[in-house]
């Protein structure tokens, strides 16, 4: 009986592993073409505009709820940006900590006329109604053609807004998601998230090449304001309003992309509990949105991106199915290797991750990634921890879906991001 089960599980793992290898192989092969595609786009737009780019006003909306630790740094990073046509809208969503005091002190100190470094700074305090409502509050009051959302626990690189504006020179682009990096954090959890984000955002290159980017995280995303006129504002009834908006935009056939040179640093979860809550929010939000826009899967509608409908989204579901079997799969691989002494499969897995690391290092902006390269032999146990976290989030999401429960807004102790937005970024 056990032998039969072993064969069944091994076959299942083989199927999953093969499908995942196909995905990662495709992603690795296509990813490097991102630079080519974006350079060609830039060249085409520059030609069309005969070297005279449009002046686009960017309204940066920073929703904040109990963000006394990081809010000033976030605002400072936007002010320090090289792009001049900027409006900064801070929306305090009924914070109970000293966020209000910190913002007012900063404004009093830095400006008498509402302008700092040529950028218009506006502050609103409103009753708590959730992040979606805070974003909508800001959007309704924004004057710019471009709406950029930044979390109050994040900072943007010095040239982030300048780079972001370039993408919107292309009239077809409706939304752009930036390159989010986890702030330097020497804890194990911090390290795991840095590695994870490094992978995740590298693969967004492939999404961009295929025109299939479908998640514009609130930490660092920008939208053409007209999109809100057409599709409506953020859904205030859903906690993952950013994921819902992303899918709504894709569902309605708008063109979006990923901007690797628009870098934002965000504070990662600092404890296991906060990491669990973060993953639960993401997973549940994704499932809710997938359910809402389920007709996008395998859709041949002319407005729907085929790579998204037939490759990216189905593979995302497949990943969740794989996650369900992950405790069995990983344990089987490890125990098989130990018992049989045949470490070929395990070595292949480790080497495959190493190759992804290597490619990441080659195409990554920062040399620091090469240091992370040395971590590859230890990545398996680190990712095993992440598998456990994701697994818990998956089961809880299922439970909540079945019971019709909604997630609570996540809260964790802020420590603030370490990076200062003093460096420029260029596409590699």
């Amino acid at each position: 009986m056990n032998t039969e089960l072993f064969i069944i599980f091994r076959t299942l793992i083989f199927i999953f592993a093969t499908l995942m290898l196909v995905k990662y192989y495709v992603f690795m092969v296509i990813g490097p073409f991102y630079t080519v595609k974006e350079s060609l786009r830039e060249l085409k737009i520059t030609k069309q505009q005969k070297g005279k780019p449009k002046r686009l006003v960017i309204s940066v909306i920073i929703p904040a709820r109990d963000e006394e630790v990081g809010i000033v740094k976030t605002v400072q990073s936007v002010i320090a940006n090289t792009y001049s046509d900027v409006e900064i809208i801070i929306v305090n969503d009924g914070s109970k900590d000293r966020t209000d005091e910190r913002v007012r002190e900063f404004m009093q100190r830095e400006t008498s006329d509402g302008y700092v470094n040529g950028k218009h700074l506006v502050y609103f305090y409103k009753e708590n109604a959730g992040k979606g409502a805070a974003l909508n509050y800001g959007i309704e009051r924004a004057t710019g053609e471009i709406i950029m959302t930044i979390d109050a626990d994040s900072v943007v690189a010095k040239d982030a807004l300048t780079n972001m504006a370039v993408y919107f020179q292309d009239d077809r682009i409706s939304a752009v998601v930036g390159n989010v990096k986890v702030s330097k954090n020497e804890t194990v959890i911090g390290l795991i998230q840095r590695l994870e984000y490094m992978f995740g955002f590298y693969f967004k290159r492939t999404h961009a090449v295929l025109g299939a980017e479908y998640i514009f995280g609130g930490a660092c995303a920008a939208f053409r304001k007209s999109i809100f006129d057409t599709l409506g504002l953020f859904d205030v009834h859903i906690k993952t309003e950013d994921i819902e908006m992303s899918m709504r935009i894709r569902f309605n056939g708008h063109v979006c992309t990923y901007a690797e040179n628009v870098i934002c640093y965000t504070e990662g979860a600092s404890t296991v509990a906060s990491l669990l809550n973060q993953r639960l929010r993401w997973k549940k939000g994704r499932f809710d949105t997938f359910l809402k826009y389920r007709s996008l899967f395998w859709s041949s509608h002319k407005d729907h991106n085929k790579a998204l409908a037939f490759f990216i989204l189905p593979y995302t579901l497949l990943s969740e199915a794989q996650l369900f079997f992950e405790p069995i799969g990983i344990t089987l691989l490890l125990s098989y290797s130990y018992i049989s002494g045949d470490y070929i499969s395990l070595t292949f897995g480790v080497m495959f991750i190493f190759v992804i690391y290597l490619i990441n290092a080659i195409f990554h902006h920062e040399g620091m990634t090469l240091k992370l390269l040395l971590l590859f032999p230890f990545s398996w146990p680190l990712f095993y921890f992440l598998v456990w976290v994701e697994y818990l989030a998956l089961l809880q999401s299922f439970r909540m879906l079945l019971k019709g429960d909604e997630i609570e807004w996540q809260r964790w102790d802020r420590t603030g991001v370490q990076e200062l937005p003093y460096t420029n970024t260029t596409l590699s």
Partner: protein
Amino acid sequence: MKKRHIICYSAIFLALSLFSFNITLSALANRNIGTLASMLTAKAASLPSPSVCTNENRIDNLSDITTAGLRELNQYQNICGSFVANHMMLLTSMPNSTKNAIELADSMAATLKTYSEYGVSPIVMVEPVTSWGLVDFSEYESGFYDDWISAYFKELKLQGLTDSQMGTWVPFPEANLPYWNTANTTASDFGVIVSKYLEALEGYFPNAQGSILLSSATYTDTNFSWQNENYASLLPYITNIEPGLVDSVGLQGFPWMPPEGSTAAPITNANTFLNIKQATSMADALKTKEIWFNTGTFSTAYAQSPNSIVFVDASTRLQILDSIISEASIAKSKGYDVSINLFAQDQSNTKEAIDWSYWHSEADESNIQADAMKSFIQGVYSHGIQLSIFDNGEQASNIPLIQDYMPE
């Protein structure tokens, strides 16, 4: 996420991981998670190198010896740091001409004299092969080889060998396996041909030891696959042997592992592959109290087929070896004199593709496979069981071996 949810989901995660581990353990090592502790302690406690295999002094002056078996015995002594055995198994083939008989006998005489010089008693397995190929048992039965066999023993006698130097002779070992040329004979013919050979031996060496060896597993010609074994009674094979002709009876049995990817169940308990009832029933029928087992364990099987290759860890080997000792001990407790021949030669480069050895060089002395063997040797002697070894290191080029005739 609430604490109780975290605990509950973590428990599911852990349970699935353990479930998966148990399935792998069961499928690959024929164990379950309940025996995990014993498996770990077997690796951690039982396997650590026993300081010596026996308390007896090693056989001296073997270090410069060139005779294959003795050279290997010296390695075993080095690994064990003590005496290991004073019985060694060696193979020989059948003559197919008078000239060939004399040549074979001269070579064998030299070997046996060397063995005798070092106090090692030989167990000579007479493989039914000649340079022509497999011996047709019916042809042997008809007397076709009689003159050459006679010439062979006559030459051994002329070389000055004594009865005790001849040791134990085992004609046509495991003749119940279908890869021998049994097409024109039946089970009952085995007794006839064995008797014929041993009577020829007695004609020149009346006090030399004669024995038989049969495989515990029998097969049909049309269904010859290791997992299609039938551990039936072997009595039909010995009906034509006069009681008192043989001094001992041998039973051969080996563990079996399915090839990688197969769903067949492994055979790893000596209670199955080396069941003493098969041996004692033969011994009783032939009126002897001496029983010996030809057995061993392997580290690698299907060594030449990358998709089928199977590895067996040291603790599993030790577990199998322990089950062998258990079976032998039961036989001993019933009043039989019991000995075990440990088949321990690396045959991974042959058609057999099985590595029966416990190390590959003296540099491996400390490895846990060798430790398993050392523990086994300790166990054998502590139960009052005698031990012999088969390991020539490298196969002698002038002796066709059984694996040369195995199906592809």
